[in-house]
């Protein structure tokens, strides 16, 4: 009896000691949990709650059930903004990949000066979207900018063309600016995928007589599935949330044709101060982005075997 107590007491004490020591971990993560709770989880819950209210900036808010969501169904300008956002996302993603993939292949293997080229291609990626937009708003300006006066001086156009006055040139100017800014980033991600492909696999295919195109299709693309999916999702998610460049360079113009989803939510919430309605719009955007993230998790799942 005594012998059992004598052996088990220190053991139990040690177990309690161990678990108490483990509890200390909670203290270490507490500040992080507090930040995320106060500045993310609570606002997230509030967004859902506010979306069920008529919530002006001043005065009382009133519960109105799903009325905001019914209003969204009739809000053609929101659907137009969403349609434009998807159109922009599609075009800009294709454009980014069309530039970034060749660049990634170009810098993949260490050769003389490769590091220098890689750094040069990547430089615009570390500049902020706001800085890049301000910079290009100057370059695109009809009087003091670069492109219109240069085209005029070279005799390409009969007069200085205002690139930002009509939809097509304005839209493609934004695409050019975003590709310039983002291609280097996508390039680095694709490069990591290319570098993870075993070199001997490519060499074996060369011996088997596979041409560069066949090798690209049969080896490079399948083995890069996860990297491609990641680069794709980053580009799509970033583009759906686009705001800075359309606000700074175009102010949503010409004729409100380049209002993106985030821009429309910004206008409703912080220009018209319809906070409840803005929250409902936010919920729609949120559902789209979460769906995208779930697709991402599915695409990025660990490959089974070599597949």
């Amino acid at each position: 009896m005594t012998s059992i107590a004598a052996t088990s007491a220190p053991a139990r004490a040690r177990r309690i000691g161990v678990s108490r020591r483990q509890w200390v971990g909670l203290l270490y993560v507490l500040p992080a949990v507090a930040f995320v709770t106060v500045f993310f989880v609570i606002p997230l819950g509030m967004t859902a709650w506010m979306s069920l209210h008529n919530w002006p900036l001043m005065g009382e808010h009133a519960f109105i059930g799903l009325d905001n969501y019914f209003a969204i169904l009739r809000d053609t300008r929101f659907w137009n903004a969403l349609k434009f956002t998807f159109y922009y996302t599609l075009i800009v993603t294709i454009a980014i990949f069309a530039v970034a993939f060749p660049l990634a292949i170009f810098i993949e293997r260490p050769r003389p000066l490769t590091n220098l080229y890689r750094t040069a291609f990547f430089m615009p990626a570390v500049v902020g979207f706001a800085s890049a937009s301000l910079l290009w708003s100057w370059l695109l300006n009809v009087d003091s900018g670069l492109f219109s006066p240069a085209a005029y001086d070279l005799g390409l156009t009969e007069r200085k063309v205002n690139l930002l006055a009509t939809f097509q040139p304005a839209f493609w100017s934004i695409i050019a600016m975003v590709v310039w800014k983002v291609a280097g980033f996508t390039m680095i991600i694709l490069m990591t995928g290319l570098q993870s492909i075993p070199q001997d696999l490519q060499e074996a295919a060369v011996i088997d007589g596979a041409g560069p195109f066949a090798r690209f299709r049969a080896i490079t693309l399948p083995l890069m599935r996860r990297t491609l999916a990641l680069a794709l999702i980053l580009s799509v998610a970033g583009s759906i949330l686009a705001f800075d460049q359309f606000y700074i360079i175009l102010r949503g113009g010409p004729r409100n044709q380049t209002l993106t989803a985030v821009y429309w939510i910004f206008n409703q919430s912080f220009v018209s101060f319809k906070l409840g309605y803005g929250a409902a719009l936010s919920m729609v955007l949120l559902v789209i982005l979460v769906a995208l993230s779930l697709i991402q998790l599915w695409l990025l799942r660990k490959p089974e075997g070599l597949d």
Partner: protein
Amino acid sequence: MAEAMSQHRKAAFSLARHSTGIIASVLFLAPIVWTVLSTFKPAQEARQPPLPPWPTTGFSVENYQTLNTFGDGLWASAQNSIYVSVMTVLLSVLVSVLAGYGFSRFRFPFRDFFFILILSTIMIPFQSILTPIFLVLTKLGLHNTLTGLVCVYVTLQLPFSIFMMRNAFDAVPREIEEAARMDGANNVTMLVKVMLPLVWPGVVTIALFAFLGAWNEFLAALVLMTDQSKFTLPVMMTALQSGRFGAIDWGAVQAGVTVMMVPCLILFLALQRFYIRGLMAGAVK
């Protein structure tokens, strides 16, 4: 003969490669270089199209000087930006080092729940919760304060930086800790004296991303900072570029953009290794 042919082809390949590389590099660098050169024109010349980009009527820093005359001045906004960015770096590093250590080395209830909670915030766009953030900051008395903005930026950094720091701590062998514990080190000295030097590269990486994130962020600063004296550089420069202070002074815009870009470029060039490492960590995992 075949030898000569192959030599010849090699030279041609190398020539094609370097011309492609140089042309592409010029395209990517040109807008940046063009802007920086143009800022040194006198104000009069800066209003004209930048052809050529360098000053032709004399070198001048007039554009930087006039920048200080708009609103509360560029220097006030730059100070706000520096304060917000540095505080975001310090606070997010502190919080994520503690959390990374906690998640890596302790087994406590709800550990996995908290970790997944923090990481999953990356799935939700902060753009969709800005209004309630505005209301929460008002409730906390942080409305229209730089500190409030810092809190928001730190929260946005946490999923990435805690993920990075947890991995960094996971990579440190437990034997090192046990040896230090034998020597009587407690948790805090262990973390600061023993562990921190070993996870230092991870700290530099998350600090760099926190700085760039806070320095360049636009939408939250635009929405949350309504008082002009609290504007950060991107918000201030956008106000200037939209003609809020009268006719748009493009020379001043170029100078402002340069002030915004240069710290990012210098930090990136100095710490490129850590930046790429952060990208890889995000890409591989």
